[in-house]
């Protein structure tokens, strides 16, 4: 018993030591990138370990080591819980001396990290989270929203569908910040184009059984069932909708946020004909294809989604700004530099970052290929139209962002 007691005490002492150790190691000589993402749940395929890889590739390609900049990357799982995310962000900034947090799918978590980052004057580069509030009422001088947002999705997919006759909608919405924002932004597009919303139902995040929600969608008689959710929730809903014969019954599904990995999971047989808005697709340019090849080789053959590409692009631009400012200490100053410098990288090409923190680039409307059209795995999208950068994102004046001025 005494021995056990001894080991307990030793354990407590060790924990204390570990804490002091962590503080002693910190060095401000290095740029520390923290990839905060979903490593175990419904968003792990479209972000997860792939985002860590994308950040690493960006650091390699930037040639940080050759330029004498020491860059470290750490990562953590936020478990899709706002409290876990904000606690991790806080201790990363305080103890681990992290300078920038990237990615963070799940808008609820991202909004929490947004606040912590503002308080600590660090940098937050959002690729995974979608809520347009990040550059709207909750915008921050320390945050850049890189890849896409709910307004852009609604504007792309919503417009395209209403204009091809899908004028009555029923929403199936994930019940948290992201789902609410996506539903709100899409509803605005639908009603603006003369369509109407017949009803909506909210389902919990990471839901397994959509049957009762799908029955409500079916009985609403809406032409379009809009899926205002993402990742595992979207694929589950689409699969179960097929079982309920929703598409056979004459209704169409509109996946408002569908990623390449979701299409891969669904298979072309189920996913064919889905229309979606994305910021990036691997099979569009030679540079994209080269990146995808490298990425897939290091990631069990899984091809990059637009979120992974966004992480790569954002980290590249961040490193450029730090190089120019010659310091990573003042988050606001780095973000200001990022906004002042036009963006230019191999994946997203040329673009700009607006005052409200919104990165602006072209968006694309894709349609999922029929199985016969696809040449093999990961050959899934055909381009329907390009939405030019100037029209792809919410005009700054409509966002109610206090710093947009």
């Amino acid at each position: 018993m005494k021995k056990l007691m001894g080991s307990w005490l030793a354990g407590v002492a060790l924990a204390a030591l570990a804490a002091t150790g962590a503080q002693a190691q910190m060095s401000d000589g290095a740029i520390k990138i923290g990839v905060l993402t979903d490593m175990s749940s419904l968003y792990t395929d479209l972000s997860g370990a792939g985002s860590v890889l994308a950040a690493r590739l960006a650091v390699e390609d930037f040639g940080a080591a050759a330029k004498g900049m020491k860059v470290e990357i750490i990562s953590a799982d936020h478990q899709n819980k706002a409290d876990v995310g904000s606690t991790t962000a806080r201790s990363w900034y305080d103890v681990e001396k992290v300078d920038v947090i990237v990615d963070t799918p799940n808008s609820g978590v991202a909004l929490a990290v947004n606040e912590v980052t503002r308080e600590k004057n660090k940098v937050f580069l959002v690729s995974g989270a979608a809520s347009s509030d990040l550059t709207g009422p909750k915008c921050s001088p320390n945050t850049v929203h890189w890849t896409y947002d709910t307004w852009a999705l609604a504007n792309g997919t919503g417009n395209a569908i209403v204009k091809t006759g899908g004028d009555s909608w029923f929403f199936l919405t994930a019940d948290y910040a992201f789902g609410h924002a996506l539903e709100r932004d899409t509803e605005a597009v639908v009603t603006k184009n003369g369509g109407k919303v017949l009803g909506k139902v909210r389902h919990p995040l990471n839901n397994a059984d959509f049957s009762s929600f799908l029955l409500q969608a079916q009985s609403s008689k809406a032409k379009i069932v809009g899926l205002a959710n993402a990742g595992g929730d979207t694929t589950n809903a689409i699969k179960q909708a097929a079982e309920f014969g929703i598409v056979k019954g004459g209704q169409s599904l509109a996946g408002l946020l569908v990623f390449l990995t979701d299409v891969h999971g669904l298979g072309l047989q189920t996913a064919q004909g889905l229309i979606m808005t994305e910021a990036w697709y691997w099979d569009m340019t030679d540079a994209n294809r080269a990146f995808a090849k490298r990425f897939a080789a290091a990631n069990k053959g899984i091809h990059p989604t637009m979120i992974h590409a966004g992480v790569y692009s954002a980290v590249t631009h961040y490193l450029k700004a730090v190089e120019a400012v010659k310091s990573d200490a003042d988050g606001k100053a780095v973000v200001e530099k990022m906004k002042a410098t036009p963006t230019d990288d191999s994946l997203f090409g040329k673009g700009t970052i607006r005052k409200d923190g919104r990165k602006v680039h072209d968006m694309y409307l894709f349609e999922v290929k029929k199985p016969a059209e696809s040449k093999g795995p990961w050959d899934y999208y055909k381009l329907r139209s390009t939405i030019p950068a100037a029209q792809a994102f919410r005009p700054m004046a409509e966002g109610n962002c206090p710093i947009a001025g």
Partner: protein
Amino acid sequence: MAAESALSTTAAGGGDRNAERTFAIGFAIMLGFFVLSPLAIYPIFLMKVMCFALFACAYNLLLGYVGLVSFGHAAFLGAAGYVAAHSAKVWGFPPELAILAGTASSAVLGAVFGWLAIRRQGIYFAMITLALAQMLYFFCLQAKFTGGEDGIQAVPRGHLFGLIDLAQTMNLYWVVLAIFAFGFLVIYRTIHSPFGQVLKAIRENEPRAVSLGYQVERYKLLAFVLSAALSGLAGSTKAILFQLATLTDVYWAMSGEVILMTLLGGLGTVFGPVVGAFIIIGAQNYLAKYGSWVTIIQGFIFVVCVLAFRRGVVGELGRYLRRSL
């Protein structure tokens, strides 16, 4: 005869004094640890430990000293967090009032839950508390003001009494330490009061306590409300600390975690829950990089604890030192 009784009273008096001295030493060590440790350990982590230690101590008051197994204590922690966060953010309450509001709401909630639950014993009591807590969880998931999955975010820490800026980490640290010490002493005082004696009598033999003329239900209810209020104090402090109130704190897993902390530290010991909270929160914090393995490690620790030292860390230490800690 007279000499003998005199002897026994002095012995008893000496025992009391001994116990008091043990407590004083233990309390001084604990306080000293929390005063000095922020020099070496991340203060936010320590504050989290203190919040959970207070929560576990409040739970221990019920489980360790009245023998009531509540499986719904997360409701008090979480509800108080929501009330404190909402009142600080939306109504602009200063932190001290926000914390008071949270604590008061948990006390009221505790009175309602307790009033319903103490009519049953054992497993039925546990199930009723669990059911009520799950109802509250569902309410928090659906209600507008709680923000559903997002929780209430960006809660201002504010200025204590309009003077002390709590945005400064160390200022907040001393406030949290004071709240923790206050809650801890309230629990100690309760346990060692005549009221606490009756609670222990109920734990040992409820029919006998009834036969002695005690209205056990009133005692149980009062203990339940006290435990709920102190859990609420912990929850509201936590909400101000992390500037966040979320569903995690009302979820049933949190009720399980507090049982784990209490058992691991030592059921029915004053200091046990504090040690238990330190171990569990420490494990969650420093093992976080192993992701979902944390729960497996927790389970393993629990099994080892139940098999090897059933009295918990402090319970075994107390037995070794022949002191009641």
